[in-house]
């Protein structure tokens, strides 16, 4: 099973950190280290075992804990509407990109695995008309708050 990133999601990974923006509801998210690696794997279409293997090749840690963390983060992302299970998966294998690339390991050593969390920000919701239903005047144009020249 792999995932696709939803159409209304804008995202970017820079220097091992990720920012993810839901253009539909104003929520945005950040991920660092392991979380950004996981997002990178999701974007490349890796399935869950491949994501776990990819992280295991980069991070030192308890494998079970790693698996649980991956599944939890993927569930959180799905719940937040960032990703969807890909129903049209073709069973492609991505072994070629599982191994760490140049510079991904420090002095050839794995980093300590830290359970990734999806940091969520909701402060932009106030800038959206979440319920843009309104009353209209006799000409058909919406009624708006009245301001005077002195305001």
């Amino acid at each position, binding site marked *: 099973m792999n995932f696709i990133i939803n159409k209304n999601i*804008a995202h*970017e990974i*820079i*220097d091992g*950190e*990720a*920012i993810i*923006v839901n*253009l*539909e509801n*104003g929520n*945005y998210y*950040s991920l660092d280290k392991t979380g950004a690696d996981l997002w990178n794997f999701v974007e490349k279409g890796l399935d869950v075992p491949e994501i776990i293997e990819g992280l295991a090749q980069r991070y030192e840690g308890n494998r079970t804990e790693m698996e649980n963390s991956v599944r939890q983060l993927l569930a959180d992302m799905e719940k937040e509407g960032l990703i969807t299970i890909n129903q049209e998966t073709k069973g492609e294998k991505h072994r070629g990109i599982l191994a760490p690339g140049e510079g991904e390991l420090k002095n050839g050593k794995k980093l300590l695995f830290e359970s990734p969390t999806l940091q969520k*920000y909701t*402060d*932009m919701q106030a*800038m*959206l*008309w*979440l319920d*843009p*239903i*309104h009353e*209209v005047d006799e*000409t*058909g*144009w*919406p009624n*708006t*708050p*009245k*301001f*005077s*020249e002195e*305001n």
Partner: protein
Amino acid sequence: MAQHSKVLRRKLTDMEIFPLTERKVATREEKSGPEAFFGKLHSSFLRAVKAAGGAIEHFYDMGGFKIRLCFAGSTMLPLITRALSHLESGPDPCSHLTICLWDSRSTGIDIPPPPWSQDDYLKRGEIGGYYDEHIYTHYDLYTGILSMLDLRQNIALYWLSDAKEFFYFETGAPLLTIFNWWMERHEKQMVHAAAVGTAAGGLLLVGKSGSGKSSTALACLDSKLLYAGDDHCFVETKPKPYAYSIFCSGKLSPKDFGRFPFLHEPLRYAKQPYGEKALFFLQDFFPQKMAKGFPVKAIFIPRITTRPETQIKKTSAVASLTALAPSTIFQLPHAGHEAFTFLSAFVKQVPAYTLELGTDVSGVTRAIENFLLVHG
């Protein structure tokens, strides 16, 4: 206060205002779509010009383009032009963009009813089905301002019912939606950021409202630094990161008045509804400090602290993008993936720093000046 000049009042022909070069018979689909509504709305503008006794034109240099504002009568002039006065230029018959502005109350000319339904209003005021590759439509449910842009003709329409109900904050950043639509098609992105610096180079101050952008930018008026905006500017990535000024307005919370004694005069003339920020126009008081633009050397993310001294610390590009992208995108109708991609490219080109603001205002500007001396 300085008065605005360079007003050109004369009667314009319909073809001058609305130089349709490809007039054609509309198809059935076009008759009920955005193009047809744009045409009807523009006809209302032409009637408003006649009713007002002529059009009044103002010209501006913005981001390397010549922008023409064409008013039906004088009622809306002071509401729109003061924030743009630092960019005003002489008349030019070859403007890149013409914006037609009017209100129904002062001209006595109504506009047609909206052809869309209530369900078509989207979350940022976009109108579902009334924007396509060429025509953009936005209705601000808060201010009652209708904006449309036809990119094929480079003509925009800006209407509201009654200019006397113009929201005072809009006078500080008028035409934001139209400017953004048009500039993004010309490889520039509007950003929610303040901009200060020197002719050789400056920086963007980014972050949410209340993070210290405006107050930091205003503090620079009492220094060697130039001012290119406290809330919005355009940026481009090619050939190098560059910021362009849009508005010469400034805003200040009443709680900060005492910290900015050099703003005493602007604050005397400021508009300030009870409890709101005071709004003033800096071209009237600091014309020598207004910059049209400069290369961007850094992005600063201000943080308010209680310490007297100001500190500048390196931070990540993602921190910079997080401070810049959401607050930019969600206040701009139609902004989405393209804007995010543009901003991602921009932050990769420009180093980011946290600006830990000290309580000593002069220390803030000294820190920025010193930074630009080293990095500018």
